[in-house]
């Protein structure tokens, strides 16, 4: 146990000193291996390789590529236009449009940072131009981006599935209801602030049926891509990697033949961006494999189980304590690396205490995402504050209400597992 404590303290010290996570995890693990005579140094390269030697993991570059192709192909503009016609007439319409766009775009983008950058880059300046305060523009964009990785298809769910060998289809379905619930809750809290601050409508009336049908048809080819992925996976017709390939081909067809906005240079750029994002995610996965090898050999899960069982013996209590642990770490560590580091050990401990793996995965992903908009670090909120040109502190007046609502939704999902398990149980495959 002494080795594990040293490993964690050393890694956390490196993280806090600003060393990239891959090197914090890698250096801490390497030092332990070098000083432990029972461990061989070749564990480092072998586990680095084994960590990413997976056919399921190969689906991630494809999903990222599909998202890049659709983003470069002009999808965002079409979704925003459609959402404005649909709900732009309600009070504070543009703020609500922001949330609706995140929900619609979520199935395509699947990464909250990319989602936030893409949508925030367009909608935050428009919101400020229409008289919204910069703080609410940044907060709405940041918090609504958290819906994306919960609503299927989701790369975070895919990662959790890979790390814990849980069914991808069940996880995708399990995230649908909580994701929509989160979106609706964010719309409600936004409405509260809109009324309190007296923001106006972005359109006087709802779009005509003709306008709605035209805009809907224009956006639908791209919005069908995630539907194809989810149906293919849930129906058991395709493997995750095949689903990724089909997503890429569908995205290419939509961008080239329907929207005709994708140039060759943009396509090459899409390949590069997808590859670079893959590297950043996989680097943490690879380094975490070395780290987890030490944890396994030190029987870390058993020790963790002992600690949790001193706090609670019920599965709900265990899930709540894991939620609290994830939320605290999520305040300083980004979602993807956090999930990679925690999924394995928490899965082992959670399932031993009777927590359903799908339930655990959805709660874990949701909680980690909330961490990205929680000060002091709030990676996602910082990104949007940058776009809105305000300091992070300027959002403190309203972010608490959004955080309270988001944590409330996760708490509901913990206390009522049916919110997560209902859809996977009614859809048979």
């Amino acid at each position, binding site marked *: 146990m002494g080795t594990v404590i040293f490993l964690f303290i050393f890694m956390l010290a*490196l*993280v*806090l*000193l*600003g*060393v*990239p*996570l*891959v*090197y*914090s995890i*890698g*250096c801490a693990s*390497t030092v332990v291996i*070098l000083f432990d005579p029972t461990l061989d*140094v*070749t564990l*480092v*390269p*072998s586990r*680095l*390789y084994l960590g*990413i*030697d*997976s*056919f399921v*993991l*190969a689906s991630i*570059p*494809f999903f990222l*590529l599909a998202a890049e192709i659709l983003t470069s192909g002009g999808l965002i503009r079409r979704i925003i236009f459609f959402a404005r016609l649909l709900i732009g007439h309600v009070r504070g319409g543009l703020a609500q449009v922001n949330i609706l766009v995140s929900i619609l775009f979520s199935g395509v983008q699947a990464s909250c940072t990319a989602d936030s950058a893409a949508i925030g880059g367009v909608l935050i300046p428009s919101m400020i131009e229409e008289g919204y305060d910069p703080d609410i523009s940044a907060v709405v964009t940041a918090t609504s981006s958290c819906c994306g990785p919960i609503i299927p298809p989701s790369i975070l769910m895919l990662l959790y599935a890979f790390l814990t060998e849980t069914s991808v289809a069940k996880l995708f379905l399990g995230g649908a209801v909580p994701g929509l619930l989160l979106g609706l809750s964010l719309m409600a809290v936004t409405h509260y602030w809109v009324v309190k601050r007296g923001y106006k409508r972005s359109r006087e009336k709802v779009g005509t049926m003709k306008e709605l049908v035209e805009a809907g048809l224009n956006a639908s080819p791209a919005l069908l891509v995630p539907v194809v992925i989810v149906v293919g996976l849930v129906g058991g017709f*395709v493997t995750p*990697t*095949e689903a990724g*390939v*089909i997503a*890429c*081909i569908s995205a290419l067809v939509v961008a080239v033949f329907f929207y005709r906005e994708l140039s060759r240079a943009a396509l*090459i750029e899409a*390949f*590069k961006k*997808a*590859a*670079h994002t*893959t*590297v*950043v995610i*996989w*680097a*943490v996965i*690879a380094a975490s494999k070395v780290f987890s090898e030490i944890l396994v050999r030190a029987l870390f899960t058993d020790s963790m189980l002992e600690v949790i069982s001193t706090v609670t013996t019920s599965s709900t209590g265990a899930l709540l304590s894991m939620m609290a642990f994830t939320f605290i770490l999520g305040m*300083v*560590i*980004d979602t*993807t*690396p956090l999930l990679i580091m925690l999924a394995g050990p928490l899965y082992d401990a959670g399932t031993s205490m009777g927590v359903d793996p799908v339930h655990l995965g959805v709660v874990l992903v949701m909680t980690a995402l909330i961490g990205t908009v929680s000060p*002091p*670090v709030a990676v996602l909120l910082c990104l949007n504050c940058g776009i809105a040109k305000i300091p992070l502190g300027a959002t403190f007046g309203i972010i608490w209400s959004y955080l309270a609502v988001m944590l409330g939704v996760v708490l509901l999902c913990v206390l009522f597992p049916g919110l997560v398990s209902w859809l996977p149980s009614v859809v048979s495959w």
Partner: protein
Amino acid sequence: MERYSQITRYVTETAVIFLFSAVLILQTVNIFFRYTGFLAPLMWVEEFSTFSFIWMFFLLWHVADRDGKHFMVDILHGKVPPRIRWGLEVFRHFAAIVFSGVVVWSSWAFISVAGGYPTNSFKWLLMGVVYLVIPLGLGLVLVERISMIWATLRRSNN
């Protein structure tokens, strides 16, 4: 050194786009074969895809270092005096150099032990050849980080 970075970035990105496109095309063909029954799916495509993505990952790792794209927690940056910020930057490069150096050094021993086995789909291809990308990729990281730490140290002298 700037020229070296440009060349390595260009070469590795070109290789990666080629590999990525090849995998996408082969996987598409395989899906077509599988669902139409036109021909039997090519069994080697799965392993080829995995190897290609692993090569892509290791070859591009150094570019993420150069661009500062790796996940990190930067709560101290901006809250400490410039001198300490400079010291932290040197320390970050040093940590990356230690890690990549150990991987490059230990991967030779790893390849000599585990690299003699043939791959499942390509009997003529030894796993050692596939594993070669580990020292190659981390070697690129090592050179990149050494150049970065050198630049940081020189900035202080100026």
